């Protein structure tokens, strides 16, 4: 494919910015392993998708690695006990989520023994890839780069596309974050084994590892590890430019392929995983270890910034203490990087699978921006936009809630990377406007979808009422015919067939009217629907198509029907 042909060539995307990196401070010491805390709080919602089904009860003793909640539904991830102990509570607690709302969590009190449940390795090299994917569903592994999308879904063949290239995202383009950097420096061999696992399951013939050039030690470690592997893996050092670590940008950078806006990368033969994720997959198969811990960068306004291997559920306060504690003027705790992260609702939350970095914020590190001035249309934002959007136009549309125009100018393609806000001389919080407009668009789509479903239902109901009326009329006619048994047989039979024919015609007419109305309804936004809704829509579409054919030969659309859309 292109990537093979264009060895070493990089394909630049538009814009990008160079924020100060602040990465050095947290890479001075090796990753330190945090001791098992006394109490672990495990939110059920740690990943993208439906929350898993709880399998344990309060008071139950569990072992390390034991399944606490199993993946439920199509997109979901399991949760395991990070250590042995007793389930102390299953209730709502604050979770590290931008909403700041509490959600259901399992609280585990450690018994200090850290005793493993029976677990076994899988010889993945000789196993059927489909069986491996099925097994991964119970591994609890999700994307560890911060997106937290369940990994088994990404490895499952969709029957439509073949994966040729595996892209490993090790760009780590956000300032401050160094967990992937340190992981590569210290565990490059295991990462390469993880790549081999993913490559084997996907059947990908090549793998490209994209690393920004501000991590020379990590790149070197990965190169050495790759040299020891028989797999076709190539480490590609890319220039440091935020947001090179965005999957679509990285894929373009490495292969020159632009994943079409309405498609997934798999549809162009590429799948992308974070370095830490493939390592977790390797440990799951090689040692039978499910997802129990991750590396977290703790940096910013703390005494000793660094990287820590932490069990999921560990309180952030414990983590902060391990980093020497937050300095006196700390006024904020950011999860993720300074470009796309969010402020934690409280320090009293716990480490989740998505927690790649905690930055203690202080006014000196992240000063409040000066008051916003009007947009002067300088288009610095457009120059910086990695998606080649026109942020200054989207700003006007979002500000005036002109959602149709915002859609037309591809607001939904915005990745909220923050480059536009970063470069705005008028200090306009552009991304905030886009977040607002996007949520409005989603709400609008949902409302429309609900209204459409309601309309469909109402049409069915009207059709049913009409059919029942016809049936009643027919029954009454039959009764009347029975009462007049004395009358000549021939006449009776004739009346019977006449009534039946009339009923059929009436039903057909009613159905046709309903279908003709439905046929004029514009197709709906069909992205991100639940399977049940999808099935329903598919059924409706089928009927709609059928009705269209009938209508095409029938009368033209009346103005009243046109008002529907």
């Amino acid at each position, binding site marked *: 494919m292109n990537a093979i042909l264009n060895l070493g060539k990089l394909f630049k995307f538009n814009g990008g910015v160079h924020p100060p990196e602040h990465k050095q401070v947290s890479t001075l010491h090796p990753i330190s392993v945090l001791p098992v805390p006394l109490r672990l709080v495990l939110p059920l919602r740690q990943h993208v998708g439906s929350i898993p089904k709880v399998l344990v009860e309060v008071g139950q003793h569990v072992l390390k690695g034991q399944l606490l909640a199993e993946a439920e539904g199509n997109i979901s991830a399991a949760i395991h006990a990070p250590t042995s102990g007793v389930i102390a509570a299953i209730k709502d607690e604050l979770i590290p989520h931008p909403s700041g709302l509490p959600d259901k969590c399992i609280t585990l009190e450690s018994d200090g023994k850290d005793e493993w449940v029976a677990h076994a390795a899988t010889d993945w090299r000789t196993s059927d890839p489909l069986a491996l994917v099925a097994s991964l569903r119970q591994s609890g592994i999700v994307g560890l780069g911060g997106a937290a999308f369940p990994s088994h879904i990404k490895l499952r063949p969709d029957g439509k596309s073949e994966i040729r290239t595996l892209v490993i995202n090790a760009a780590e383009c956000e300032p401050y974050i160094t967990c992937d950097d340190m992981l590569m420096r210290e565990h490059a061999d295991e990462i390469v084994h993880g790549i081999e696992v993913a490559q084997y399951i996907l059947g990908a013939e090549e793998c490209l590892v994209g690393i920004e050039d501000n991590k020379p030690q990590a790149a070197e470690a990965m190169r050495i590890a790759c040299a020891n592997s028989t797999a076709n893996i190539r480490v590609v050092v890319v220039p440091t430019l935020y947001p090179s670590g965005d999957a679509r940008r990285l894929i373009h950078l490495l292969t020159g392929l632009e994943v079409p806006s309405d498609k997934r990368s798999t549809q162009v033969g590429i799948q992308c995983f974070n370095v830490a994720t493939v390592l977790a997959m390797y440990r799951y198969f090689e040692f039978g270890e499910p997802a129990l811990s991750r590396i977290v960068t703790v940096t910013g306004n703390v005494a000793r910034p660094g990287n820590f291997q932490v069990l999921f559920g560990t309180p952030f306060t414990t983590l902060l203490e391990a980093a020497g504690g937050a300095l006196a003027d700390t006024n904020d705790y950011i999860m993720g990087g300074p470009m796309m992260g969010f*402020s934690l609702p409280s320090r009293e939350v716990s480490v989740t699978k998505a927690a790649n970095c905690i930055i203690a914020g202080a006014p000196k590190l992240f000063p409040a921006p000066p008051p916003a001035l009007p947009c002067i249309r300088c288009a610095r934002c457009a120059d910086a936009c990695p*998606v*080649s959007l026109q942020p200054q136009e989207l700003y006007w549309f979002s500000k005036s809630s002109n959602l149709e125009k915002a859609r037309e100018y591809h607001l939904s393609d915005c990745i909220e990377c*923050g480059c536009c806000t970063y470069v705005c001389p008028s200090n306009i919080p552009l991304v905030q406007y886009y977040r607002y407009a996007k949520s409005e668009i989603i709400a609008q789509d949902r409302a429309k979808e609900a209204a459409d479903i309601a309309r469909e239902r109402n049409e069915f109901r009207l059709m049913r009422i009409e059919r029942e009326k016809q049936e009643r009329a027919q029954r009454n006619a039959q009764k009347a015919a029975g009462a007049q048994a004395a009358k000549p047989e021939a006449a009776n039979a004739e009346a019977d067939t006449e009534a039946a024919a009339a009923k059929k015609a009436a039903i057909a007419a009613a159905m046709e009217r309903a279908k003709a109305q439905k046929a004029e309804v514009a197709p709906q936004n069909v992205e991100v629907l639940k399977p049940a809704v999808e099935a329903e829509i598919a059924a409706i579409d089928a009927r709609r198509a059928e009705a269209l054919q009938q209508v095409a030969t029938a009368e033209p659309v009346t103005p009243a029907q046109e008002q529907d859309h």
Partner: protein
Amino acid sequence: MLRSPYITNAPSVTVIMLKVLLALLPGIAAYVWVYGGGVLVTLMLASITALVSEAIMLKLRDRPIMPFLMDGSALVTAWLLALALPPLAPWWLVVVGTLFAIVVAKQLYGGLGYNPFNPAMIGYAVLLISFPVIMTHWPAPLALAEAKLGFMDQVNFIFNAGLPAGVHIDAISMATPLDYLKTQLILHHTVQDITQAPVFGVLGAKHGELVPAAYLLGGLYLVQQRIINWQLPTAFLGALALMAGAFYLADATHFSSPAFHLMSGASMLCAFFIITDPVSGPTTPRGKLVFAAGVGILTYLIRVYGGYPDGVAFAIIFFNICVPLIDIYTQPRVFGHEK
């Protein structure tokens, strides 16, 4: 709470405007050298008028005064207008033009960021239409004038229209090269004959060439500082030179050379300081090229066929009207989308 990004790194609007003012300094110095210190008085008058009228308008519009006064945009408008006016323009002309630029063209449309037209060019156009004689009456460069006015004489002229005893107005003024060329061509002289007149230098106006050269210098500084895009000046000067070059090649006796057009009138000021106004210009990369090239072509056509010696102001105002249309039709391809 989602309020990222937490960090920003942008020059503030104030810094951008101050750099524009800084980039004008070489041009102003050249102006003083060529025409005398009177232009400093004009600049002062325009600046004070702009700041005072902007403050009053902000007050009337119930907007915060200090943040908007400090953004520097009113000063940029004032300086550009002052530099576009004849160097010894009477004080009231400067005041009226600046008032119109700030009050009508900028504040009545909504202030910073909302004006569809370049305020300085609106101010200039209003003066040119209302007072055509004064606006086309340029003093001769000091080196060419029969009588040389000192600084105080110039101030006296600006405020009282008074000249020292014995000096006639004709002794200090002369037509600009563009103007002279236009009137002489109507009289069926050839460009070669006309450019023998003392007002012509090697490229543009004799001695006056220094001013556009200084603007070019300041403009390159702005490009280097990434305050302005290279596309705008390049497309404008390129289009102007191409037009002039084509006509010059076709008939050198009736059309002057591309170099003359580049170094005359407001070409350089326009290329680096006027079409680069972000508020009233297009935002897309291709749109910038279309806009600037359009202004270049129209400027040439007005100079050669229009009723005014220079066409920069009208060309810009015309293309300001077209900006929304240009933006719509020059949208770049979004990542992951077919065109």
